[in-house]
């Protein structure tokens, strides 16, 4: 997994790169937007980490322009800007997520991993969250290598939760993903699938990973 860090503060960029490298992500650094464009010309990246206040232009403008020019990997926006609305503007301009400075490396790494799990041409073949793994192609799930028996719907739910591991997946989103428009969804249908999946996970030895956020949705999170 290769990450391009676009950040003008040399020390900050270097320390961020080192921190992410310790967490198993290889990083390149571009200290100007022009250098970032050059890097994108010559190499393939899985993720961009973009600081907004760059010396040679506005990061959001650059992102918008680059998105029009080529297929960009997901972009995580790193900003010291504090205007609350800037975050929204960043997401509108094609940023996939944002982290506000001062950030914590663990938090940054978690967001990076979440973005890398998103489906796409460069997405990893096998999803992994803690001891849990899922192969979207074969629809096979396993805990620490031991296969889990899952129904089609349970597998779909697991994939959805794993792709967004570490964030709460809203109940409505689960309903939309698991059932087609013409299917009638009984009020407890989602709860039933979730509790079946939770039982399967517990049987497989991955208890304490699937959490209910009552009134909101469900959260799959590595307990470690």
């Amino acid at each position, binding site marked *: 997994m290769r990450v391009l860090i676009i950040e003008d*503060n040399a020390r900050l960029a270097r320390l961020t790169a*080192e921190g992410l490298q310790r967490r198993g992500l290889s990083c390149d650094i571009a200290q100007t937007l022009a250098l970032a464009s050059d890097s994108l010309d010559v190499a393939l990246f899985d993720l961009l980490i973009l600081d907004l206040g760059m010396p040679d232009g506005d990061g959001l403008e650059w992102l918008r322009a680059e998105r029009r020019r080529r297929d960009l990997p997901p972009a995580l926006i790193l900003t010291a800007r504090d205007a609350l609305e800037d975050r929204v503007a960043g997401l509108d301009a094609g940023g996939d997520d944002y982290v*506000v400075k001062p950030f*914590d490396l663990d938090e940054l790494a978690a967001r990076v991993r979440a973005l890398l799990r998103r489906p796409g041409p460069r997405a990893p073949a096998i999803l992994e969250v803690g001891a849990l793994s899922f192969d979207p192609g074969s629809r096979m799930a396993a805990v620490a290598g031991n296969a889990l028996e899952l129904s089609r719907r349970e597998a779909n739910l697991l994939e959805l939760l794993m792709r967004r591991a570490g964030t709460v997946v809203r109940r409505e989103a689960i309903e939309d993903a698991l059932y087609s428009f013409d299917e009638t969804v009984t009020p407890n249908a989602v709860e039933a699938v979730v509790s079946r999946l939770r039982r399967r996970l517990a049987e497989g030895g991955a208890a304490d990973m699937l959490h209910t*956020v009552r009134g*909101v949705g469900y959260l799959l999170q590595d307990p470690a």
Partner: protein
Amino acid sequence: MRRSSISRQLTQGLALVGLVGTLLLFLFVAIEYGMTFSTFFDREALPRVIHELSEHVLMPVLVLIVPMTLAARWVIRRSLAPLADAAERVDAAPEMARGFRIETGQLPLEAVPFADSVNALLARLDRAAGDQEAFAADVAHELRTPLTLLALEMDRLDPDTAAPLRRDIAHMRRLVDQLMLLAQIDADNAAQMPQTPIDLAELAADVAGRLAPLAVSQDRLIAVEGKAAQCVRGRREALAAALRNLIENALRVTPAGGTVTLRVGPDATIAVCDEGEGLSREQLDQLVRRHRRGDHASVDGAGLGLAIVARIMAAHGGSVTAEPEHRVVRLQFAPDTK
């Protein structure tokens, strides 16, 4: 010094004028008609004297002085009425309104210089407050890069050495975030940002969803109850920050294994219920005032956090209240009437 009323002074003045006038008239009339003191004791002359006096003294005084007094009082009351109106408008000005000035258009000419100097003072205060806020925002902003660098350097230390330092940095980050938020609220207030309709149930679910991963990793749960859509008008990011602050506080005082519950409605409220000791009303009042902290508030800056929540709510015409017996802190909004 005894305070004087213009009406009263004027009435007294006119009464004095009336008295002196009456005496003078009386004197003139007496001379004119050759009256002496003995005349008053002359039984035959007395009716004529009384007639003359009432015709030439009493009547003119009554005809002139009484209507003049009434008219003057009326004129004064009328011309001072705009001052009372202006005072009412000043009283009604929102707490954090910037750019508020007394309208001098309706004021009598004599009161305008006073109003102008008050307005000039208000302008100076606005500028001072603006400078102060800009300064706080700058400080918070400038702190971000060094804090980030510090956190990144810390990552290279061995985890045992770094753990307490990382907690300190996390605390500083939160303070910086809150200062930035405060500056943002003030700036928005000054700029009178447009407000948008916000569904409280949706807001609660969104904020709860964002905080749930952190809560779960600390062995605590967040739940949302009440689905009825409750709409208010406001700045979504600011209200989300207010709610986030309350939930973070609630998570801190809730023991491991506990749940922080958000209850939306039935009217335009969001109640945040923790499973900790709960805040008393006095503690909340103190917490809401800046720089003070409740006894059990941790070192995580809950004091500043609640002050910010109170500011955000005030800017939205709402309030934050505590119900310690129910372990609830409640955000009460003015309902959306539009």
